[in-house]
């Protein structure tokens, strides 16, 4: 066989085999739905956030799933699985009636395993699946049999839709002596957050509150769905949700045991999930470097970010530099006053950020000009500079590189 024929056959082989080897682009960043809790025969919009992958901005993405069952043949995706871009180029939607899409009966499964893939099949995300611990979980209305009310998802936050589902027959009256006052009544929810503090904007919905909806084919179950950003003009970090129901005139109410308000704190993935990120990984003295602290919520149920103080307290970052000669220059509060330039700022999502350019951060007496910084160590300290809010957190080290330009 001629050499050129070999090359042609090889080329045909590669062209034909290319779609079979999809390149993995990383995990789906987050999945949520509106409403957060829904029955599989109701219309729902799923949201898929692919931030951090090379799929951002594409218009040919499809959802593939294998639980409860495959939606469409993998080799022939259709409009049923096409993801629709949103104004956020990393977030895509799929609006559907789950029972219709998956063809499942009413006893629809409570998890969805899947991945997102380009139409040509050349790029795909990692699986979101039960096996990976990140399958998309659906609310099971049967869970209400042991609860008066449930907030879904359990790990709720101000950024994502929330559903509040309550059993009106099991709810208690104002004095806690009777149950079921709101059975058969139109229910309104009176909703606030963070222990009804002035910042909770509990009256944002007006009096008597927001109208709730009966859940189809569920007896005495009422539900309220909302985006926190839509209900509360400037929602703070949600440490707890506080609510109760009334019939519009407040002569009948639905409350927790003993006639108390319902109080729900967001569940968390677990202690120690707070994270520090230094961006970028490789940096010169002329570049912006950002230290990002994402607090976790504690697991005691208090809902307070670990280590983050309240009020006017701030976190400060203290550094020491190893110079070209090997000498260590400590830059602590004795050298650098506690000014804005060492103060972390709070971002709207509750993370703390401190951005700086090494060459511009300090005065010449603090860091002499021309010093080649070999290494930087960061230690996070409380407002008083005497202790770390993070316990025995190790110091973080960055080694700057030289700039060519």
């Amino acid at each position, binding site marked *: 066989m001629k050499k050129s024929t070999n090359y042609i056959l090889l080329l045909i082989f590669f062209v034909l085999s290319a779609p079979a080897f999809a390149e993995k682009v990383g995990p789906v960043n987050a999945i949520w739905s509106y409403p957060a809790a829904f029955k599989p025969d109701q219309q729902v919009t799923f949201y898929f956030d692919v931030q951090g992958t090379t799929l951002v901005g594409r218009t040919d993405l499809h959802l593939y799933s294998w639980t409860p069952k495959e939606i469409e043949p993998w080799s022939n995706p259709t409009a049923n699985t096409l993801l629709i871009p949103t104004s956020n180029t990393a977030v895509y939607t799929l609006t559907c009636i789950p029972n219709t899409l998956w063809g499942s009966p009413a006893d629809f499964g409570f998890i969805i395993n899947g991945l997102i893939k380009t139409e040509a099949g050349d790029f795909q995300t990692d699986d979101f699946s039960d096996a990976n611990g990140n399958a998309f979980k659906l609310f099971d209305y049967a869970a209400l049999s042991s609860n008066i009310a449930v907030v879904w998802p359990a790990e709720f936050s101000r950024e994502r839709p929330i559903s509040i589902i309550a059993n009106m027959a099991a709810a208690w009256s104002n004095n806690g002596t009777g149950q079921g006052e709101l059975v058969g009544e139109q229910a309104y929810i009176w909703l606030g957050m963070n222990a009804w503090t002035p910042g909770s904007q509990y009256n944002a919905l007006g009096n008597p509150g927001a109208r709730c909806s009966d859940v189809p084919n569920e007896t005495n179950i009422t539900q309220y769905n909302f985006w926190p950003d839509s209900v509360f003009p400037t929602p703070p970090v949600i440490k707890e949700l506080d609510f109760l129901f009334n019939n519009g005139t407040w002569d009948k109410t639905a409350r927790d045991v003993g006639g108390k308000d319902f109080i729900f704190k967001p569940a968390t993935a677990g202690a120690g999930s707070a994270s520090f990120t230094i961006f970028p990984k490789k940096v010169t003295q002329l*570049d*912006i470097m950002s230290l990002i602290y994402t607090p976790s919520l504690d697991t005691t149920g208090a809902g307070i970010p670990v280590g983050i103080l309240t009020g006017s307290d701030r976190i400060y970052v203290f550094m020491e530099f190893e110079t070209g000669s090997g000498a260590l220059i400590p830059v602590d509060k004795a050298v650098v006053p506690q000014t804005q330039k060492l103060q972390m700022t709070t971002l709207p999502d509750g993370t703390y950020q401190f951005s700086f350019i090494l060459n511009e951060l300090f005065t010449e007496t603090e860091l002499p000009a021309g010093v080649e910084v070999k290494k930087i160590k960061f230690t996070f300290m409380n407002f008083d500079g005497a202790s770390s809010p993070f316990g025995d957190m190790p110091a973080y080290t960055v080694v700057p590189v030289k700039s060519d330009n």
Partner: protein
Amino acid sequence: MLVSLVGLFLISGCKKDFPAIGDYPSKTEALQGTWKAEKVMQLDYVAQEKGENLFQWNVTAAYNLTDFTVQFNADGTFVISGTAHNFAKIASGTWSFDDPAFPSKINITDGATSDAFAVIAPPKKGFDMCTISYDRYSNGKKIIGYQYYLKKQNP
């Protein structure tokens, strides 16, 4: 063979009645004007190359970067103004594309120092957005980029 020759004759005899495409739209002309940053993303090319999830970070709020204003003039001069941090460290001088038809770089110089912005989304006539990047190099390797999403002022 005869059929092929007749076919070839017929094809070659057809009149070419397509209108001329005309000159390629001038990128140089499209860039002229004053541009202001609306968003600045910092890219970690090393992380991107390794396929890490966190390879870009929005630094718009840092160092007054939305106050970055650059004016590219028709006479080949440019001026960077505003209170934003200027990574290029050249505030004024002359500019030129590396390739006027398909630019990948805007070269800038003040006579003594030269630098460049990479063209990410080139300017187009009739559009008021373009994206350029100031890239940091270390040991000859591109390690960090600052992508300026620019909007034309008074287009």
